[in-house]
């Protein structure tokens, strides 16, 4: 049972890393939102498995929050938003997809190289989940850095937060209070960003951040 527990936990964590890579690979906004939904579903499955195996029922609530907020409400409203803004064009990526993926692999290698030796004293199998969670965080950051569209940057930020939740649940428990506060802060951040996006779009007719740079007076 112990072996099976860790194998399945690894599978879900690895699946989350894989979904982060698929997020990096997407270049259409609707595809991006679909993959983000899958990302959130895999996260909730992982948290659900941790809840079952650790016999910690408050984690079921965390899983439910992940599903309801991140897999249902947020993608639906994002879809709504992009339809209202009329953005149905390709996402532009800084650098080619191949180079971005190579960077992603290097980041995974980096997080493995940092976490595994540093936590040598800890539980030998749990620390691999933490390494995966760090990779998801780094990949989310990479996504935010390589994207020009503000919506995709939001999604990158969300996937980063998914990685944090994975780390927290993998390390055998996190109080529910913290989770609720994290979820609410995410929600507030999302609302604020949404409002700003609308204002930006109203003023400049675009949400492309490089265009905003031009207006600021810095030419490239």
């Amino acid at each position, binding site marked *: 049972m112990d072996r099976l527990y860790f194998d399945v936990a*690894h599978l879900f964590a690895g699946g989350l890393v894989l979904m982060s*890579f698929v997020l990096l690979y997407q270049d259409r906004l609707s595809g991006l939102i679909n993959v983000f939904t899958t990302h959130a579903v895999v996260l909730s499955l992982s948290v659900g498995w941790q809840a079952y195996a650790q016999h910690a029922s408050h984690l079921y609530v965390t899983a439910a929050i992940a599903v309801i907020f991140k897999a249902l409400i947020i993608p639906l409203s994002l879809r709504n938003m992009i339809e209202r803004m009329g953005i149905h064009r390709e996402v532009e990526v800084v650098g080619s997809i191949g180079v971005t993926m190579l960077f992603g692999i290097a980041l995974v290698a980096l997080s*493995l190289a940092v976490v595994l030796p540093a936590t040598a004293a800890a539980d*030998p199998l749990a620390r691999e989940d933490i390494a995966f969670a760090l990779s998801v965080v780094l990949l989310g950051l990479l996504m935010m850095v390589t994207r020009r569209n503000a919506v995709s940057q939001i999604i990158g930020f969300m996937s980063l937060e998914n990685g944090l939740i994975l780390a927290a649940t993998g390390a055998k428990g996190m109080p529910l209070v913290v989770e609720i506060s994290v979820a609410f802060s995410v929600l507030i951040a999302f609302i604020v960003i949404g409002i700003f996006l609308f204002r930006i779009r109203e003023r400049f007719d675009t949400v492309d951040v490089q265009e905003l740079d031009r207006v600021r007076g810095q030419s490239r």
Partner: protein
Amino acid sequence: MAVILDLAAQGAQMGIVLMLSPFLVGFTRKVKARLLRRRGPPVLQPYRDLLRLLRKETVLAENASWLFRSAPYLIFATTWVAASLVPTYATGLMFSWCGDLITITALLGAARFFLALAGMDVGTSFGGIGSSRETMFASLAEPAMVMIVFSVALIAGSTQLSEIAASSLAHYQLRVSFGLALIGLAIVAIAENGRIPVDNPATHLELTMVHEAMVLEYSGRHLAMIELAAALKLLLYLSMIACIFVPWGITPAGADPRAFVYGALAYLAKLTVGGFILALFEISTAKMRVFRVPDFLGAALMLGLLGTLLLFVSRSL
């Protein structure tokens, strides 16, 4: 007596892959048609097509060389040997140790080498298009395959497919690298067999041709050999995925010969399920632009690399 039985089992495997490969092609086509609410051609149509091609006269271009005429046999021979090395209904057959996964990849590479050369032989632009695109796909699909072989071999402890299947059967590993290898192998299989989304096996339009462009000038028995080789390749990849990732039902080495029957039935079942899944996948997605395929195959290479990296770093990943 035991030697004769072993030889018969090995020979039976070579015969089975040969006999079943047109059936697989026909079955996939039929399922695709049914899912699209068409009647579709009969399941045994590929056999009839092969016999028809055999009986036709061969027309060669005026400047076709001896390479053009002998390439179909070489392509067929290398693909058949590679397909015979993959365990289908039993592991540990008599000659299964003389080639491992790397050898199988290289044999398929040799088949592709001769096919690309044959495409360039007559000196038309279509042949060149096919060969050039096939070379580009191969330059990414082969490294992806090698990285996937690494992942699987590091998990199983050997590159021999019989050993890998036996180790999968003995203790099935639910590991991240295993999952990554499965996805990568599926992508490579689609690209190597020229299925949607990489190439459309059903059309003869220049925009969608890769494999068809290379064999444009072939006719009669030469074309029959090449079509049979393509069917064998599809069977090979499905058998490979089945014996590594879905090994249950394979007769282990040294078992009672009567157990071979169960192994054969299990294999037939796996083939039909595999064909069904392939057909389902093909109708759910559209063909991608030729210059998007390197990104697609690059993803498979990255998955293989990630899987190998995880296995280097930790014993349990």
